[in-house]
């Protein structure tokens, strides 16, 4: 789960990580009310769940209140990579002497939370990682000890030399780690962390993602969730034990198991088609679940043919077939469907499907080819 920068700032403040003054606004009127009359440099930032907003014109500077309002008008309602900006962060702009990158992530290789810092802060950190990975310092953190003060100092010393700056930076690292583990985060970035001319260390931009599997124990984080229309479908599907991701193609697919679902999409593409979605119905053969899955799949108007690919292991194919028959009877769609069942009780399953007159095939390759042909009719 992602949150916005303004929400990350709320968490930063709660943990004592210094951020410049600022507030979120949902309308120009709100900007007019909240911005003080004095002239000072402010930054207006679009709050959208997508990277590269600066390059897209979603971040602007303003010197006066009038200018702030003008810039807010420009950004609110703006489209950034398909997302409409419906809220902005208005914050005091600070003078910057130096910029740094700070990140925490769950690292699959060291199987730990790993701290990463770089003196090459700013937006191009991925470029730094590619071109000169040695400029990124990484440190895995022992989960039983947490980030110890001396470790934080050691890392801070790689970025700063003045003892006062080192102390500020080390404290920020320790606090960020605490926030990270307390909230079951999967990513926490301060980019950039800045040093001001008056020698303050501040978090100028923050980004946090959270582990979906841990949201059950993070009510405060869950309350921050904002979902787009595409995500709504995905979350709705999740609640029903389905995993759905909408794509741009025209061949809908319904598969049991994530790996097999990906392989099915690959197969469609290999034979010249475009998958409309990723849809994993999981291990259950409950007809209700199949009905839900078909409903979600067919609500996508781009779908011109459906390929159902089930490998029956513990989920028996005859159970799946009965579910399909019930589901298809309820939905009564004109969209052509091809069904491929294999594994446990496949024969019985295929028999049940054949009685309904739907096309059935034996292999994945045949199913993909048939679905593509059907979509062209």
């Amino acid at each position, binding site marked *: 789960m992602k949150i916005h920068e303004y929400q990350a700032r709320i968490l930063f403040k709660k943990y004592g990580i210094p951020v410049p003054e600022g507030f979120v606004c949902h309308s120009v009127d709100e900007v007019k009310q909240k911005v003080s009359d004095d002239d000072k440099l402010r930054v207006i930032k679009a709050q959208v769940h997508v990277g590269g907003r600066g390059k897209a014109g979603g971040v602007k500077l303003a010197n006066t209140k009038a200018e702030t309002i003008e810039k807010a008008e420009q950004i609110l309602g703006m489209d950034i990579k398909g997302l409409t900006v419906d809220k902005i962060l208005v914050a005091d702009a600070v003078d910057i002497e130096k910029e740094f990158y700070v*990140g925490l992530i*769950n690292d699959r290789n060291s*199987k730990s939370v790993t701290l990463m810092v770089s003196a090459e802060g700013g937006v191009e950190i991925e470029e730094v990682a590619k071109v000169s990975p040695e400029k990124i310092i990484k440190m895995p953190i022992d989960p039983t000890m947490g980030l110890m003060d001396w470790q934080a100092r050691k890392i801070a010393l790689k970025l700063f030399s003045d003892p006062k700056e080192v102390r500020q930076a080390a404290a920020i690292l320790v606090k960020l780690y605490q926030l990270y583990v307390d909230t079951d985060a999967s990513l926490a970035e301060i980019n950039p962390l800045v040093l001001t001319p008056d020698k303050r260390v501040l978090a100028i931009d923050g980004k946090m993602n959270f582990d979906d599997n*841990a949201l059950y124990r993070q009510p405060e984080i869950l309350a921050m969730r904002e979902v787009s229309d595409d995500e709504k479908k995905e979350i709705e599907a999740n609640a029903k034990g389905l995993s759905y991701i909408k794509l741009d193609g025209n061949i809908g697919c319904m598969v049991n198991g*994530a*790996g097999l679902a990906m392989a099915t*999409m690959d197969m469609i593409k*290999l034979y010249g088609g475009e998958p409309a979605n990723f849809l994993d119905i999981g291990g259950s053969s409950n007809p209700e679940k199949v009905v839900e899955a078909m409903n979600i799949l067919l609500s996508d108007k781009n779908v011109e043919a459906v390929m159902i690919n089930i*490998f029956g292991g513990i989920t028996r194919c005859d159970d799946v077939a009965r579910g399909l028959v019930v589901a298809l009877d309820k939905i009564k769609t004109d969209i052509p469907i091809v069904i491929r069942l294999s594994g446990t009780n496949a024969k019985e399953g295929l028999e049940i499907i054949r009685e309904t007159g739907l096309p059935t095939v034996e292999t994945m390759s045949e199913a993909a080819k048939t679905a593509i042909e059907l979509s062209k009719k």
Partner: protein
Amino acid sequence: MSILINKDTKVIVQGITGRDGAFHASKMKAYGTNIVGGISPGKGGMEVEGVPVFNTVEDAVKATGANASVIFVPAPFAGDAILEASFAGVGLVVCITEGVPVQDMIKVTPVLKQNNTKLIGANCPGLITVDECLIGILPGMIFKKGNVGLISRSGTLTYEVVNMLTESGLGQTTCVGIGGDSVSGLYFIDLLEMYENDPETKAVVLIGEIGGDAEEQAARFIKEKMTKPVVAFIAGQSAPPGKRMGHAGAIISSGSGTAAEKIKAFNEAGVPVAKEPSEIPGLVKGKLGM
């Protein structure tokens, strides 16, 4: 010979009184797995599927000499179940549970190391040494005894491939579903090393997925350390980019975990990568000179 488990493996089931635990305990038993006990706190003394139930893993190990455990408890308690098994001295822990928080897995990692516990999963289908021992939720009847080892991050895709191998006459030694979570127990390279040392295994099939760099590491390991042939398949070649974890995700893996990068790494290691699962048996036969 085989890897990790065989006919002498004594298995306990954590969460045996739950619906899934009881169902799969009976399936494993029917396959021939030596299920010696189950754990359900407060229900010690009961019997489920003809298996004695204990209150703690420690009690079960003392009474039965169990050396492997399979976990079916709900996600919020799975991390603790792994810890309990590890501290009770169980050598191999297989966690089937899906949806375990990553922080819980990170917390168990140093304990596993300290107690010398091998973990498979979480969020995995388990493993099988054909005709000897099945631990997890794999459908036993699709496997056939033979000389191919198989490791996979997937569940049903594994069954699909196993079915194809079996139908083409290629039997298996041990097949392991390592699970798809970002932080989990044994990885590809841990298992490749075991297959390399297992005299019975003549070739290995590796089924990877997009994301992370476990496949790239496996490719490096194969190139440097393995004498046995490996055939690979990567699921998710058509998946669009964008489902990833911001800047840091790309940085930590020193790459973006795309199928193209993984295929390139395998090709450089002399590992053929199947374009679709049905090509796998042919590639294996080619490598074995069959």
